[in-house]
């Protein structure tokens, strides 16, 4: 028998997950002995924040052999992973000297913080705060999550779609739930997330004898499709807009579209609502009815050839929508993560409008369910003086030649004066692993004449961290005292005061102290500490700012606000503003249901004059003049176009494209149960429970003579990876899928064959036209068996092949 644990501490699974569930860490001899999760009260309308398999494996994560313990300095070629231990002073002195040099020589626009969400649960990066206090840095706009959807809904509805959708609670009034590339169960897996609630909605409808049908429109069969009433409609990735066009065509010719709504609330659906001066036949209705410039009627047969979905199924789906009392139409962020994701995302939204399932009980606007607002930055510091903002995905393009202009998506400035000369990657894996075209990206990063200095600050030596010239080891969120707002995508939210605990941490440091030490060296300590102080004062400031978001987004006394006193919950009703003053002590948390959110655009639908949309016209811009103008000025990659309407546009790498002759399969990635982005997916214990595999339809398996479990090479002109085959009828023929986040693992000085199975070895740097977003799901590949040479190399690496 082992001895009793030394300590049990309350902590958070603090990743960029909409849940951030509760963890109870049992520490023994300075190690996490085991991890429990929420043991507090549980009720159907106030569920526990139960951690998923990732959270349960947190002990393995925090003790992973990939943890960074000491500051490192690169000694081999960039990206080789050859480092030498150095002191904190040496590391920080070098970083401060480089910031000063690069700011002086090239200006602050040459310093770039790539998109990184590892630090998100703790708010803004303190390194960024320090540099903002000094001279500032190049900004970025949008993100890797939903860039195309943000741009698409901005054109259509005038907002970025993060907060404007109906909450899933609205589906309690629906009889049909339509999921475009959305899996509530897989996207966020915790007990307070949407999956468990979807089960409850189903059971509630069954108990009351109401119909509740789930239609999942997705290349993959997901667990949301359960009973005989549910339906899986597989579409070829990137063709959702063609599917929507045919459904709307069906609705129009049968008189089943909500023509009144389309006329009164929309611009450019019909010819007679087009803005003045618009070329004739540029409306959406003319596009689908075959009167547009392409002269093609968007019939079900037309869409069937593009989407791979039989015409009869499309027709039947149109009937389902027409007959539904209230259809709740939503989309995940996978469909929009494609070359023409802006078309995909706003076409799905337009379907909600055209079918009339919009702005009234039981409906949604077609976007993802809303988030709570993100936590604001700590007070004080200095505002970044640089106005120029690069689209998050375009930094590699910037490294290639610099000179990014407004016509290429730059905001806040006409043109970048200098290319990026310094990268500060704090808590992110978007340099390689979560970016795209890893081999090409490696070459850009490895060339020291392009980016002259790279700083990495992280908890793990992940693939991106290997490119650091200086690598700083950080304490993980869950191993220090912290203030965490959890559940910003869940029904329940929680303000949690995590405790610190004694264990081996090498020379890892708290991110705030790293930023502070840097600010000191840059001579801006006073500005850095202004409004946020240091130590306990900083934590208190953090808690206060998290507390404000918590209070503002939680239910008031009419809801179920209560507090959980370390397991002994008291369901005390209290007002949100009182909660803001009553912040939890260490080891305690406060919990509340999310404040009730209205049905998306309900007020606008009821009275569009009194409640106009934030679009230029105040209406739904099916035809967007802003996009029509952008189409004239934008500098686009070869062959790419911008359409003012949500028309289907075929991707350069899509079904039927010339590239498909050599690479006939579409590769997509999805949110697997085994990781939160790239977190957890490198752990052996996770692999043993939920192995990574390439999903292949048996039809494609037979064509490539594949058997279950066989390692196979997935390749295109950009690279090659090895993955194990899982033959399953749950994926569409012609499509293969990998869970995202697998850790890239290749000999970059040799074959570059990625034994880790990271999909971004294969994905493309080609940005989308409007958002300039990441379109990783537009990716063509082929499969082949491993050569004898590769097998030998694999065995040498310990890969079973």
């Amino acid at each position: 028998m082992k001895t009793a644990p030394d300590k049990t501490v309350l902590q958070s699974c603090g990743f960029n997950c909409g849940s951030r569930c509760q963890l109870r860490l049992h520490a023994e001899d300075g190690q996490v002995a085991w991890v429990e999760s929420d043991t507090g009260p549980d009720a159907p309308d106030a569920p526990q924040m139960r951690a998923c398999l990732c959270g349960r494996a947190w002990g393995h994560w925090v003790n992973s052999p990939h943890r960074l313990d000491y500051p490192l300095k690169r000694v081999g070629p960039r990206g080789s992973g050859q480092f030498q231990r150095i002191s904190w002073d040496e590391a920080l002195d070098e970083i401060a000297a480089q910031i000063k040099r690069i700011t002086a020589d090239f200006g602050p626009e040459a310093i770039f913080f790539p998109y990184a969400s590892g630090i998100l649960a703790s708010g803004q990066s303190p390194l960024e705060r320090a540099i903002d206090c000094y001279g500032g840095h190049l900004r970025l706009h949008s993100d890797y999550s939903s860039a195309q959807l943000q741009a698409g809904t901005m054109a259509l509805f005038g907002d970025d779609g993060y907060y404007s959708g109906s909450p899933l609670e609205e589906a309690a009034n629906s009889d049909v739930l339509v999921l475009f590339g959305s899996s509530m169960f897989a996207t966020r897996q915790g007990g307070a997330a949407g999956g468990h609630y979807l089960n409850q909605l189903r059971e509630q409808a069954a108990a009351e004898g109401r119909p509740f049908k789930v239609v999942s429109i997705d290349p993959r069969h997901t667990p949301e499709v359960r009973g005989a009433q549910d339906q899986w409609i597989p579409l070829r990735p990137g063709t959702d807009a063609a599917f929507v066009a045919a459904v709307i065509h069906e609705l129009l010719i049968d008189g089943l579209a909500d023509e009144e709504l389309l006329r009164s609330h929309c611009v450019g659906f019909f010819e007679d609502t087009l803005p003045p001066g618009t070329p004739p036949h540029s409306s959406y209705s003319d596009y689908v009815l075959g009167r547009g410039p392409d002269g093609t009627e968007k019939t079900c047969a037309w869409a069937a050839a593009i989407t791979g979905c039989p015409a009869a199924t499309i027709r039947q789906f149109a009937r389902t929508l027409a007959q539904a009392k209230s259809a709740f139409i939503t989309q995940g962020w996978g469909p929009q993560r494609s070359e023409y994701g802006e078309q995909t995302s706003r076409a799905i939204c337009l379907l909600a409008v055209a079918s009339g399932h919009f702005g009234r009980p039981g409906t949604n606007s077609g976007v993802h369910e809303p988030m709570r607002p993100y936590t604001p930055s700590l007070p004080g510091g200095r505002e970044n003086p640089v106005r120029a903002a690069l689209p998050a995905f375009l930094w590699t393009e910037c490294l290639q030649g610099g000179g990014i202009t407004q016509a290429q998506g730059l905001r806040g400035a006409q043109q970048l004066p200098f290319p990026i000369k310094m990268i500060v990657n704090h808590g992110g894996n978007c340099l390689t692993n979560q970016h795209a075209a890893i081999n090409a990206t490696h070459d850009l990063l490895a060339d020291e004449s392009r980016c002259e200095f790279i700083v990495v600050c992280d908890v793990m030596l992940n693939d991106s961290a290997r490119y650091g010239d200086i690598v700083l080891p950080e304490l993980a969120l869950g191993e220090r005292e912290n203030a965490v707002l959890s559940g910003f995508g869940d029904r329940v939210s929680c303000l949690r005061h995590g405790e610190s605990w004694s264990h081996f941490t090498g020379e890892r440091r708290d991110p705030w102290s790293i930023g502070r030490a840097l600010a000191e060296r840059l001579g801006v300590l006073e500005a850095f500490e202004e409004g946020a102080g240091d130590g306990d004062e900083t934590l208190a400031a953090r808690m206060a700012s998290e507390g404000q978001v918590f209070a503002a987004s939680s239910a008031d006394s009419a809801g179920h606000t209560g507090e959980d006193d370390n397991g002994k919950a008291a369901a005390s009703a209290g007002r949100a503003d009182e909660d803001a003053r009553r912040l939890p002590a260490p080891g305690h948390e406060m919990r509340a249901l999310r404040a009730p959110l209205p049905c998306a655009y309900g007020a606008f639908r009821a009275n569009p004059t009194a409640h106009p949309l934030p679009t230029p016209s105040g209406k739904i811009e099916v035809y967007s003049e802003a996009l029509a103008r952008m189409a004239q000025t934008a500098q686009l990659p070869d062959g790419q176009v911008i359409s003012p309407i949500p028309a289907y546009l075929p991707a350069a790498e899509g079904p039927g494209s010339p590239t498909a002759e050599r690479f006939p399969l579409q590769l997509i990635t999805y949110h697997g149960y085994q990781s939160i982005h790239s977190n957890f997916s490198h752990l052996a214990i996770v692999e043993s429970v939920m192995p990574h595999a390439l999903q292949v339809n048996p039809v494609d398996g037979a064509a490539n003579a594949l058997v279950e479990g066989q390692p196979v090479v997935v390749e295109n002109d950009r690279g090659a990876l090895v993955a194990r085959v899982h033959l399953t009828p749950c994926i569409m023929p012609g499509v293969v899928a990998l869970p995202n986040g697998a850790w890239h693992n290749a000999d970059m000085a040799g074959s570059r064959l990625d034994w880790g199975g990271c999909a971004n070895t294969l994905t493309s740097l080609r940005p989308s036209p409007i958002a300039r977003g990441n379109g990783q799901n537009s990716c063509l590949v082929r499969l082949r068996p491993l050569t004898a040479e590769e097998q030998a190399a694999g065995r040498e690496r310990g890969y079973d092949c």
Partner: protein
Amino acid sequence: MTRLAIAINLDRCVGCHTCTMACKMQNNVPEGLLWNRVLTTNCDVVDGAEGTYPNVSRVYTPIACQHCQNAACQRVCPTGATYKDEKGRVEIDYEKCIGCRMCMAACPYNARVFNWQTPVRTTGANYGDAAVPVRPKGVAEKCTLCKERTDNGEEPMCVVCCPAHARIFGDLDDPDSEVSRLVRERHGYQMLEDMGTNPSVHYIG
């Protein structure tokens, strides 16, 4: 009498494998071994499906020791290491286990695993609930229905961890317990009922 049992609502299970991981963590299950697995009905691979594209169906089925009333493993155990306890659980006395693996051959549910090697823990940290005994090389092991937790009146870890609330724990001998009521009202069934093992674990849906 007491007959501790779990009813698993397959209409709720989504195959997330959290139970598998939580069980492994709670019970210090060594590398390469699982006490609890999530299968898909009528499939022999992880995450399988029935039917042919696009008419597929997929029923996730978590499986571990079924805690049978007429346990085949107990009948064949030559040393009495496998025993039925007063709460209706099938347990193993690791001191008495001689590693003959007759029980593994007899179990129709493939619920048992064996420590062929000295157990390996990936991080080097000896994880797991401190009250759970560590098993040595050469013994069989399996789900204990979280003996250390259920002895203290707590529910098994797989029950409290399930994000989909698919598992219900209780006493089958108490007709008023939630588990009894569910099995009765929702026509719960036993896995491989015709084997005559009379499992305590029931499936619903």
